């Protein structure tokens, strides 16, 4: 059931790792997504990780831990994190935590 509630589609080009987040991110699914993504991060050590939120239909505060954890991991390689196509509801959660103030992190909202 919920084992398939979230997946990642990952591609790598020109030192940029692009990960499309698909489905729902909560405490249960974020653990699975983290394992898959971190394996790719360790493999490629990209200068930039782009997390695409376009197909993420739900996120609670577990997503904050996920984003900050990946930012810390990228920091070890000197990499940047870009969050793109962030919907309004998910953006409210990021704003609550003041994520936009973190260095080496860029957040872009979805086109309305």
């Amino acid at each position, binding site marked *: 059931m919920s084992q398939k509630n979230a997946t990642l589609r990952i591609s790598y080009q020109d030192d940029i790792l692009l990960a499309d987040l698909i489905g729902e991110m909560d405490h249960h*699914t974020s653990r699975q997504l983290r394992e898959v993504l971190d394996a790719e991060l360790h493999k490629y050590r990209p200068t930039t990780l782009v997390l695409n939120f376009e197909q993420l239909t739900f996120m*609670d*505060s*577990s997503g904050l831990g996920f984003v900050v954890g990946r930012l810390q991991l990228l920091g070890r390689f000197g990499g940047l994190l870009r969050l793109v196509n962030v919907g309004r509801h998910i953006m409210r959660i990021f704003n609550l*935590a003041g994520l936009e103030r973190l260095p080496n992190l860029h957040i872009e909202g979805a086109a309305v």
Partner: protein
Amino acid sequence: MKHTPINKLSLTLPAISINESVSRAVVGAFVACLNPTINDIADLKCVVSEAVTNCIVHAYPQQDTPRKPGEIYITVVLYDDRRVKIIVRDYGCGIPDIAKAKTPLFTTDPGGERSGMGFSVMENFTDKLTVQSWVGRGTKITMFKQLH
């Protein structure tokens, strides 16, 4: 003026993480009869997910042992003025210091990548949040939200 309850849902689930998505899906479907806005539904699903996750992560810390996991009791009441009451109750370990637990970014589990923002999300996405907790006897979260 006292408003009248028009519908009520009672849901009991074992405190296992797969039930985070189950609980919010059920509550979302139950509230849908009031034709809520997309934003209101998103808020309610999010706060249910936060409260249920707290039960799974914190209330029953021995859940990963062969012991039977504890249970989460969810009650949702719909009122005739389009208010929604959500209660999430567990009979787990309880919270020794509620004020500290509600502090933004506070977490007892930093290694687990918990953000410590669960209560902040619940407070911001509802109109009223009450936390009652008894050490060794569990926690009761009560939330109200007026639908648009």
